C-alpha cells in the first residue's frame, strides 16, 4: 500500500463523480487548444497560399511601363553562372487588362494579364503550352467569365506609353491594345494559377498569354517588364539578393531603360535621349557633368506670336548658355554678348514676312500647355525679346532637338499629329507643312535652358537630351558603354525584391499572427467557465468524502499531506481531461474551420483555410488548461482543510456553508464605490478614442458586476445567519410564526453561499459579455451623403482597371463635362501594392498609396478624424497635414483606424519605408487617423508629392463620387457607359461599409457564439449545483415528504430557489451591460434590441431547462431511504 495506490484506488472508485471533472477540463482544453490551432491553421494556410502563389519564384523585378530587352533574362542567367540550386530566370510581361466575351456581356476588370513563355512554367508544377492566339485562365477568372476551354475572349489592355497618359503631350489616343484569344487551358491554383507579386487576401483574376504575342500587341516586340528568378530549394538571403542586383547591373544596357545614343549628323557629336521623351533628373546628373555633356530641352509650343502675327505648333529648344556663347559672334564677326535671360533667337523662317515678320528687339510671345497643380491642362504664355534672327543653316537646322514625342515625331504630316492636347488642324498652313517636310522638328526658336526648365520642366524631367562633343567618344558604341558605366539599374528603382521572403513575412506578420490569440480571447469566457465548473465539480466530489479526509487527518496525515493527495487526484483528472481535450480540440478546430469557410467566411476573406495544428499549440494549450484547472482545484480545496478533523468526521464540511455576517459587513460601501467607479469610467470613455471607449466599457461593466456580486454576497450571508437578538429574540415564537416554505428555501440558498455566489458570478459575467458585445454590432450608415461619416459624403467608389487620364468631370481636352455638373469627385492615383484592409490577413510591408487632393477633402469636410499627431499644426483642418514638411524624405500620410491599428499595427507618428521609381528610399509617416471609412486599405498622401516619387503614375484609378441628382444610380450607369473600356467597378459606399462591417460583425458573431457556449456551460453548472444541493439535503427533503409535502411541491420549491439564483445572475449581467453601454448610447450607438432580447430569452430558457431537469432528477425515487440513513 502506497500513497500512489491510494490515489489510484480513489480515482477509480469515484470515477463516475470524477467524470464531470474530466469533461470540464476537456472542454477547457479543447477550447484553448482549438483556438490556438485555429491560429496555426490560418498561418499555415497563408503560408501555403503565399508559396502556391509564387511557385518556385524567389525574387522578382517589375519595371512597370519601362520595358527592357527580353534577352536580359538569358544574359542574367549566364551572369549568375547556373550554380547548383539556382533555378530559372524568366522574362514576362505583367499588365492590367479587362476580359470579355466578344459576343457580349459585361467585361471583367482588374484582370492581371501575364505574357509568359516556357521558363515561366518552370516556376510552377507543369508547363502550359500556349500559341500566340491562346489564353490560359485561372479558375477564379474562368468562373467569373463563365468561360471554358475553347471559348473565345477579348482581352483589352493599355499599351506602355512614352509618357504617362495624363502628362501634357502624353498620347491619349491609341493607347489601348487588344487580343482576341481562345481559351486553351484552365490553370490550377497550384500551378501558378494564383500567381501574383502582392500578398492580397482577395482572389486574383489571372490570364496567361504567349509573351511574344502580347509584346507584339503592345508595340513592344522583344521586350518585357518582369524578371522572375526561381530557386528550386531555398529562399535567398539578403546577400544573395544583392548579388542578383550586381549581376543585373553587370548585364543590363541603357537600351533596357529606354535610353539610346545617336550620332548627330555633320560631326556635331553624340546625343543621349530617351524613348520616354524626358530624361530623368538623376540620369542627367549621373551623366551630364561627369562625361562633359550638356543638357538640352525641346518643347512643343502652341503658338509663337509677334504682334498680331502667329505661327502655330512650333518646336522651341532650350539650350545651354555655352551654345549661345559659341554663336554670339554674328556672321560679320560682331559679338553681341550672347543670349540674356528672357531673350530668344528666332530662325529666319519664322521671322519671315510670311510668318511673324519679326525683327531683333521685337517681343515674341510663346504659348504652351503645362499641367497645373490640380492636374488640369493649363495654357500659359511667356514673352521674350528677340535677340537674334538666325539663318536656316548650320547648327540652327537640328531636327534632333525635337524629342521623340509620341505620335508626333514619327509622322509625315503636321496634320497627322496626335498629341494629348487638342490640336486645331485648321491652323496648319501649307507653309507649316513645307517646314515640316524640309526641316522636320528643327526648332524655330531658341531660349536659354534655364528659361526652358522654368517653363516646361515637369514631373517627367527637365531635359530631353544630353549632347556630347564629337571628340568626347570614339563612336556611338563607345558613348553607350561610357554612359552605361555611369548608370545603375538601382537608380531607376530596378532592384530585385525577395518576394518569397516578403510573402512569408507578410503571412506571418499580419493579423494571422495573433489570430490564435484573438480566438483565445473570444473563447476566454468559455474556457473560464469550463475551469470554474471543473473546480466546482471536484470540490463537490471531495466534499462528499469529508469523512475520508477527516479519517486521514485523524490517523496522522497533516493537512498538507491530505491536500497533496487531493491535488494529486485533481492533477491526474486534469491530465486525463487535457489529453482527451487535445483529441476533442482536433474536432473542435475542424468545426471552427468549417464555420470560417461558411458562415464566418467574412472573417478570413477568400483565403482557403486548411487544418494545421502545431505540436507547440497542442502541448502548450493543454498545459495551460491543465495548470488553470489545477489552480482552480487547489484554491477550491483549501477551504475544506480548514475544518477540524472531528468536524469532517461528523460530516460538517458537507453541510457547512455561508459566510459569517462579519465578512460581508463592508459589502454596501464597497458596492457603492464600485458603482461610482463604473459611472466614472463610463463618462471617461464617452466620446473618447476607440481604445479608451473599450477600456471604459469593460471597466464600467466589471465594476458593476463586482458591485452586484458584493451585494448578493451580503444578502446570502444574511440568509445564512441565525436570527439575531432584538427583534430576533422573539425567535422562539415570532420566528416560528414567520417560517414559510419559501423562507426555508432561501435559507438553503444561504447555506451554500460560496457555491451560489460562484454560479451567480459566472452567469452574470457570461451574460454581460454576451449582451454587451452583441450590442456593439456595427450597421452601415443610413445616409451616404453625410460628409463627416464613414462615406465622406460620397455615394460611390469607382475602381478602374485602366486609369482615367483626366478627371471624371472633365473631357479629355480638359474642358468640363456638363453631364457631371454639380457633382463632386475625389480622384485618386494609386500605386501598386496590396491593400492593407482587414480582409487581408497578410501584413503588407508597402501597402498601396493613394494620392489625393487634400484641398478637395478639406473643402468638402469629408470624413471624420479620430486623432491627429501633435505638434504638426493641422489646426481646424487636419487634411492640411498632407502638405506638412516633415523632411525631404518623409511623406505625410493619413489612414483610417482599421487600416492602421488592425491591418498594419501602426499608430500616429509611425512610418513605413518605401522606395520610389528612382530607387530612393523615403518614409511614409502617419500624421492623422480617420474614423473607420470607405478609405480602408490605403494610405492617403498628397497627389502632387506622390507624383514626385512616382512620376510614371498615370491617371486616376479610383474615384469617389457624390451625385447631386435624386437618381443616384444614374451616376453608376453614366460611368459604366462612358468608360466601359476602362473596366469600371462601381460600388455604392454603403455597400462597401457593409462589407467592412460584415467582417467586424463576423468576429462579434464568433464571440457571441463562444460567449453563449460559456453561458450555457454556466447554466449547466447551475444544474449541477441544484443536484448537489438536493443530495446534501436529502434527509431534509425526506422529512418534508414524511410530514406531508408532495414531490411536486418539493420540485416547485427547488425550482423557485434556484431560479431565484439564476434571476440574480441574469439581473446582474443585464445591469452591468446597461451601465457599460450608456455612454455608447449617448454617442449614438444603435442597439440591436431584438437580437439581445433573443439571446437573453435563450439563456433564460436554458437555465429553466437545466434547473427543472436537475430538480426532477434529484427528487425522483424514494427519499425515505435518506431518512433511514440519517
Amino acid at each position, binding site marked *: 500500500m502506497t500513497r500512489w495506490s491510494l490515489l489510484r484506488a480513489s480515482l477509480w472508485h469515484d470515477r463516475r463523480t470524477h467524470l464531470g471533472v474530466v469533461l470540464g477540463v476537456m472542454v477547457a482544453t479543447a477550447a484553448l487548444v482549438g483556438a490556438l490551432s485555429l491560429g496555426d491553421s490560418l498561418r499555415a494556410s497563408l503560408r501555403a497560399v503565399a508559396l502556391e502563389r509564387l511557385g518556385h519564384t524567389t525574387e522578382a523585378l517589375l519595371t512597370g511601363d519601362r520595358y527592357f530587352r527580353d534577352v536580359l533574362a538569358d544574359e542574367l542567367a549566364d551572369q549568375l553562372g547556373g550554380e547548383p540550386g539556382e533555378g530559372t530566370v524568366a522574362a514576362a510581361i505583367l499588365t492590367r487588362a479587362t476580359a470579355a466575351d466578344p459576343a457580349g456581356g459585361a467585361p471583367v476588370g482588374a484582370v492581371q494579364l501575364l505574357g509568359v513563355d516556357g521558363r515561366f512554367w518552370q516556376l510552377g508544377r507543369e508547363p502550359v503550352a500556349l500559341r500566340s492566339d491562346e489564353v490560359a485562365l485561372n479558375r477564379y477568372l474562368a468562373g467569373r467569365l463563365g468561360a471554358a476551354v475553347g471559348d473565345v475572349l477579348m482581352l483589352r489592355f493599355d499599351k506602355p506609353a512614352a509618357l504617362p497618359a495624363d502628362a501634357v503631350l502624353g498620347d491619349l489616343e491609341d493607347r489601348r491594345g487588344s487580343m482576341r484569344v481562345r481559351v486553351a487551358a484552365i490553370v490550377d491554383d497550384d500551378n501558378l494559377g494564383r500567381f501574383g507579386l502582392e500578398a492580397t487576401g482577395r482572389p486574383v483574376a489571372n490570364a496567361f498569354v504567349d509573351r511574344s504575342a502580347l509584346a507584339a500587341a503592345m508595340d513592344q516586340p522583344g521586350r518585357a517588364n518582369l524578371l522572375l528568378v526561381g530557386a528550386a530549394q531555398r529562399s535567398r538571403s539578403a546577400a544573395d539578393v544583392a548579388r542578383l542586383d550586381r549581376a543585373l547591373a553587370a548585364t543590363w544596357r541603357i537600351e533596357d531603360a529606354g535610353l539610346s545614343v545617336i550620332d548627330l549628323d555633320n560631326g556635331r557629336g553624340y546625343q543621349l535621349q530617351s524613348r520616354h521623351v524626358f530624361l530623368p533628373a538623376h540620369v542627367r546628373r549621373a551623366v551630364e557633368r561627369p562625361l562633359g555633356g550638356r543638357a538640352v530641352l525641346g518643347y512643343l509650343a502652341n503658338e509663337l506670336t509677334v504682334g498680331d502675327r502667329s505661327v502655330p505648333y512650333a518646336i522651341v529648344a532650350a539650350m545651354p548658355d555655352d551654345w549661345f556663347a559659341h554663336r554670339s559672334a554674328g556672321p560679320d564677326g560682331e559679338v553681341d554678348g550672347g543670349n540674356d535671360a528672357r531673350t530668344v533667337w528666332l530662325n529666319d523662317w519664322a521671322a519671315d514676312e510670311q510668318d511673324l515678320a519679326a525683327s531683333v528687339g521685337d517681343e515674341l510671345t510663346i504659348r504652351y500647355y503645362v499641367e497645373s497643380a490640380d492636374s488640369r491642362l493649363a495654357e500659359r504664355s511667356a514673352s521674350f525679346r528677340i535677340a537674334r534672327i538666325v539663318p536656316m543653316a548650320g547648327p540652327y537646322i537640328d531636327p534632333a532637338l525635337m524629342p521623340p514625342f509620341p505620335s508626333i515625331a514619327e509622322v509625315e504630316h503636321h496634320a497627322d499629329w496626335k498629341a494629348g492636347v487638342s490640336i486645331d488642324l485648321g491652323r496648319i498652313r501649307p507653309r507649316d507643312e513645307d517646314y515640316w517636310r524640309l526641316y522636320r522638328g528643327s526648332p524655330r526658336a531658341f531660349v536659354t535652358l534655364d528659361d526652358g526648365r522654368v517653363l516646361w520642366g515637369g514631373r517627367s524631367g527637365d531635359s530631353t537630351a544630353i549632347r556630347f562633343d564629337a571628340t568626347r567618344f570614339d563612336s556611338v558604341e563607345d558613348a553607350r558603354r561610357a554612359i552605361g558605366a555611369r548608370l545603375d539599374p538601382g537608380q531607376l528603382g530596378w532592384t530585385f525584391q525577395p518576394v518569397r521572403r516578403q510573402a512569408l513575412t507578410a503571412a506571418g506578420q499580419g493579423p494571422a499572427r495573433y489570430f490564435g490569440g484573438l480566438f483565445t480571447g473570444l473563447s476566454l469566457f468559455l474556457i473560464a467557465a469550463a475551469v470554474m465548473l471543473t473546480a466546482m465539480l471536484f470540490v463537490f466530489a471531495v466534499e462528499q468524502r469529508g469523512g475520508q479526509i477527516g*479519517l486521514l487527518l485523524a490517523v496522522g496525515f497533516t493537512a498538507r499531506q491530505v491536500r497533496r493527495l487531493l491535488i494529486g487526484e485533481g492533477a491526474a483528472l486534469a491530465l486525463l481531461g487535457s489529453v482527451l481535450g487535445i483529441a476533442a480540440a482536433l474536432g473542435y478546430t475542424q468545426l471552427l474551420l468549417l464555420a470560417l469557410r461558411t458562415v464566418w467566411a467574412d472573417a478570413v476573406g477568400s483565403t482557403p483555410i486548411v487544418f494545421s495544428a502545431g505540436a507547440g499549440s497542442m502541448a502548450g494549450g493543454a498545459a495551460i488548461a491543465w495548470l488553470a484547472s489545477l489552480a482552480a482545484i487547489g484554491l477550491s480545496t483549501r477551504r475544506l482543510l480548514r475544518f477540524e478533523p472531528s468536524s469532517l468526521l461528523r460530516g460538517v464540511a458537507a453541510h457547512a456553508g455561508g459566510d459569517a455576517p462579519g465578512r460581508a459587513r463592508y459589502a454596501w460601501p464597497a458596492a457603492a464605490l464600485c458603482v461610482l467607479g463604473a459611472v466614472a469610467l463610463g463618462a471617461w470613455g464617452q466620446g473618447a478614442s476607440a481604445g479608451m471607449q473599450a477600456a471604459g466599457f469593460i471597466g464600467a461593466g466589471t465594476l458593476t458586476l463586482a458591485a452586484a456580486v458584493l451585494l448578493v454576497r451580503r444578502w446570502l450571508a444574511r440568509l445564512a445567519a441565525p436570527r439575531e437578538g432584538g427583534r430576533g429574540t422573539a425567535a422562539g415564537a415570532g420566528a416560528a410564526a414567520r417560517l414559510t416554505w419559501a423562507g426555508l428555501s432561501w435559507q438553503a440558498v444561504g447555506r451554500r453561499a460560496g457555491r451560489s455566489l460562484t454560479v451567480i458570478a459566472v452567469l452574470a459575467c457570461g451574460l454581460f459579455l454576451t449582451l454587451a458585445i452583441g450590442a456593439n454590432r456595427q450597421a452601415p450608415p443610413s445616409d451616404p451623403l453625410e460628409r463627416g461619416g464613414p462615406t465622406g459624403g460620397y455615394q460611390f467608389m469607382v475602381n478602374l482597371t485602366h486609369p482615367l487620364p483626366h478627371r471624371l468631370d472633365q473631357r479629355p481636352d480638359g474642358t468640363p463635362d456638363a453631364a457631371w455638373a454639380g457633382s463632386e469627385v475625389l480622384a485618386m492615383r494609386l500605386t501598386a501594392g496590396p491593400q492593407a484592409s482587414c480582409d487581408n490577413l497578410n501584413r503588407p510591408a508597402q501597402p498601396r498609396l493613394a494620392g489625393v487632393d487634400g484641398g478637395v477633402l478639406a473643402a468638402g469636410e469629408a470624413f471624420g478624424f479620430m486623432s491627429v499627431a501633435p505638434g504638426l499644426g493641422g489646426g481646424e483642418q487636419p487634411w492640411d497635414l498632407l502638405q506638412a514638411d516633415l523632411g525631404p524624405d518623409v511623406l505625410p500620410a493619413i489612414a483610417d483606424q482599421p487600416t492602421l491599428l488592425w491591418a498594419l499595427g501602426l499608430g500616429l507618428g509611425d512610418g513605413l519605408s518605401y522606395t520610389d521609381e528612382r530607387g530612393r528610399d523615403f518614409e511614409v509617416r502617419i500624421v492623422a487617423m480617420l474614423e473607420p471609412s470607405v478609405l480602408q486599405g490605403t494610405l492617403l498622401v498628397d497627389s502632387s508629392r506622390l507624383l514626385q516619387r512616382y512620376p510614371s503614375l498615370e491617371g486616376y484609378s479610383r474615384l469617389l463620387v457624390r451625385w447631386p441628382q435624386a437618381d443616384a444610380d444614374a451616376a453608376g450607369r453614366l460611368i459604366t457607359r462612358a468608360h466601359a473600356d476602362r473596366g469600371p467597378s462601381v460600388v455604392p459606399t454603403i455597400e462597401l461599409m457593409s462589407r467592412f462591417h460584415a467582417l467586424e460583425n463576423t468576429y462579434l458573431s464568433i464571440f457571441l457564439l463562444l460567449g453563449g457556449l460559456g453561458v450555457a456551460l454556466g447554466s449547466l453548472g447551475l444544474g449541477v449545483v441544484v443536484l448537489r444541493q438536493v443530495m446534501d439535503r436529502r434527509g431534509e427533503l425526506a422529512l418534508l415528504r414524511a410530514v406531508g409535502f408532495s414531490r411536486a411541491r418539493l420540485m416547485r420549491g427547488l425550482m423557485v430557489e434556484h431560479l431565484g439564483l439564476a434571476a440574480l445572475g441574469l439581473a446582474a449581467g443585464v445591469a452591468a451591460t446597461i451601465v457599460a453601454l450608456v455612454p455608447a448610447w449617448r454617442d449614438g450607438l444603435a442597439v440591436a434590441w431584438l437580437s439581445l432580447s433573443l439571446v437573453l430569452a435563450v439563456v433564460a430558457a436554458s437555465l429553466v431547462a437545466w434547473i427543472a431537469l436537475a430538480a426532477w432528477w434529484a427528487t425522483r425515487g424514494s427519499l425515505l431511504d435518506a431518512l433511514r440513513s440519517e
Partner: protein
Amino acid sequence: MTVLELDNVSRHYAPATGGAAIAVLDGISLRIERGDALAIIGPSGCGKSTLLNLMGALDQPSAGRVVIDGYDVAGLDDRRRAKLRNERIGFVFQAHHLLPQCTVLENVLVPTLVRGSCAADRARAEDLLERIGLADRRTHRPGRLSGGECQRVAVVRALINRPALLLADEPTGSLDRAGATKLVELLVELNQQQQVALVMVTHAVELAARLGTVRELRDGRLHPWRGVP
C-alpha cells in the same frame, strides 16, 4: 507509565448569536496508565465525544492541559500533533470510516502511509486480521463486509502503528447487540494482550461495565459511576 493526562481541562463553545459561552467540559482531570481501560458513559449530547476528541488531539481545550505520552498537546504545531496521532493514538469511530475504494488490508495500512508503509507493516496487518478472523477477507472491499466486520477492521487499523492509547467513540453505535458485544470483547482482549490503554465512550452501560473503570460525564464533569447495568 502515564499514557494520558488531563489537567483541569475545559471546553467552551461561544454561540453564534453572541452571549455567554457554553461550557461543555468543565475542569476535568484524569490520568490513564498503560494498560488501563476506561469507559465513559453519559446521556446523549453531554460532551463525551468532545472529551474523546480532546484526548486524541483532534480538538483543543479552552483551558487546561492535555498531555499525551509526555507531550503537552498545546505546545505542538499541526505537524507534530498529526505525528502524535499517527504514532501514539489509535481511533475507532462510531462510523467505521473505512475507505470504500481500498481493500480490507489496504484500509488497515492507511495509517502507515504517513511515514511510508513497509513489509513489516504488512505482516503485522495480516497478523492482526488473522487474530480477528478476517484474514480471508483481506482483499475484499468494505462494501462486501457487514457492519460488525467493518468495525473490527477499523479496530485493527487503529492498532497498526502500535499506539499507546486507543480511543473508541461509540464503537458499537451502528452494531446490533451481538456485534456490539463481540466488538467490546475484542477491544478488551486487545487492551489486555497489547497493554494499550483503552478509553471507550459509550451510552451502552452494560458494555461499559466490561471495562475496568467506568466514569459518568455529567454537567461537564467526570463522576464515578455507581449505577448498575
